[in-house]
């Protein structure tokens, strides 16, 4: 089974070492070891409840906020154990950004949505420049530049999600975790998000959880298939989808279950 798990030869940005997550007595992630290369897009796929979102949330310690969740093993960011002593999750979450399944803009203006993270993190530069730069990075600037002071809730779902991406980028993270970022969006909005992800990997390491296998195939460089809390197969996306090595991977991507 080891040859089914890809080992990056370039710099490793995120790593899980024998990582398990328990919700009470239930083991949602079971001893997963995976290495995620710097400035690549890695997709986590698998059926509902396979632990892919839970694994993702280990990398910015969002599982800390789930009552009763317990993490065993190690999750490393640039070689440092995120669960080690002296690691502040507040600092980690600035450096490892997250975009959620449902767009969750703050009920404030577009400008303030971007500015909030920068402000609390003590940003000292020009705020208007940062807002423009972040919105441009998220391919949203042209659509909203004339209404920065209007409510973010007035935007369409797809625009809201790009605003959430812009908001995450404004605090200058190194990694972007995306938890099914397009599953609540229509196909056109989804396409925009996918194009955006493809752009972002020039500057960021992106880990995306998706239910949509075509999406994984389109946007990711590497794909990890999880099943029942275990990492079954992890490899270059083209190879994994055309020539899966594990039977369960093949069964899943050909639609026999899941």
């Amino acid at each position, binding site marked *: 089974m080891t040859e089914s798990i890809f080992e990056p030869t370039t710099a490793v940005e995120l790593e899980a070492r024998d990582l398990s997550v328990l919700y009470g007595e239930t083991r949602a992630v079971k001893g997963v070891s995976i290495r995620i290369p710097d400035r690549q897009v890695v997709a986590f796929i698998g059926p509902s409840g396979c632990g892919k979102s839970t694994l993702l949330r280990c990398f910015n310690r969002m599982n800390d906020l789930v009552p009763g969740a317990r993490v065993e093993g190690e999750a490393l960011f640039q070689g440092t154990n995120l669960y080690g002593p002296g690691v502040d999750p507040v600092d980690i979450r600035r450096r490892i950004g997250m975009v959620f399944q*449902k767009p*969750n803009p703050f009920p404030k203006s577009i400008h303030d949505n971007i500015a909030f993270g920068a402000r609390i993190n003590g940003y000292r530069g020009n705020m208007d420049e940062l807002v423009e730069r972040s919105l441009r990075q998220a391919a949203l600037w042209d659509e909203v530049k004339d209404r920065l002071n209007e409510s973010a809730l007035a935007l369409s779902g797809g625009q809201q999600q790009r605003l959430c991406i812009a908001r995450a980028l404004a605090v200058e993270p190194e990694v972007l975790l995306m938890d099914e970022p397009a599953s609540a969006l229509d196909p056109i909005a989804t396409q925009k998000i996918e194009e955006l992800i493809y752009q972002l990997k020039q500057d960021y390491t992106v880990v995306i959880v998706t239910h949509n296998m075509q999406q994984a195939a389109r946007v990711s460089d590497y794909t990890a298939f999880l099943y029942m809390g275990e990492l079954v197969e992890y490899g270059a996306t083209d190879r994994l989808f055309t020539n899966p090595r594990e039977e369960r991977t093949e069964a899943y991507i050909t639609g026999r279950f899941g």
Partner: protein
Amino acid sequence: MTNGRSPSAAPILQGVPPLQPAPEGDGRHQAVQRDASRFDSRLGPRARMGTVFHLVCLLATLVGIVALGALLYDVIATGSGRLTWAFLNGFPSRFAARAGMKPALIGSLWTLGLTAVIAFPLGVGTAIWLEEYAPASRLRTIVEANIANLAGVPSIVYGMLGLAVFVRYFAMGRSILAGALTLALLILPVIIIASQEAIKAVPNSIRLGAYALGSTRWEAVRHHVLPLALPGILTGTILALSRAIGEAAPLIVVGALAFVPFVPGSPMDPFTVVPIQVFNWVSRPQAEFRELAAAASIVLLVLLLSMNAVAIVLRNRFSRRNQQ
């Protein structure tokens, strides 16, 4: 393909067999047999039942409105003749013609203001701790259960507590401060529960969004949870204060006086409040004093209605701001 990737990864779903309808006559499919005679729709009686229920609900509403209208009419008819500037600005007297309610009115405003200043931070702070900080522990369960119980304790019991603790133990005497502290305890559970509900109504996705940007708990609460919960918190607080302004029993126990011929000037002064003044006048035999009581009741009602109006205005203003 917009990103230039090779199309080899695209046809991943080829070879998936399409869904087939079940073949006919294979024994598994049973045709639906429709038979109108098995149903008796009774549309007429059902519609009549709906009308009856509608009327019952309307009637229930009308009982309340008529009762309120009758009360207002009675109070205004009895008291409006006495509602003069001299009455509002005058001091109590043994002679109805000369009696005024200024000390009671000022006493009520003092008490209310102090109660708000004491109860609001305590209540909102407790609600924030319970909702945002307290882990799901036994302590939290006990605290919450006790708050719910305290909300149902009769107000006179709070009066006895206030007498023992504030008036006697802390030696505040029969002061406005002792009364306000007592009333603050009385309305604290209501403020806590209303604030908790308002905080619970803030979507969790907003909190997660803030945390994911590197917020501390305080920053998430300060910038996102509290602004969104504020309309609900303010409404609950003002409704709780409306209850406090109408209380007489606990303040009588704490030692508010029935006859106060001066205007209180500091929180340590003795005082009376409008409901006690009303009670005092109502219990006198002369009809003129009952008219005075009605006039004072009108003042109390106006005060109450303006407080509720403020609650509505505040709620609308903050909800609109949150949507912008």
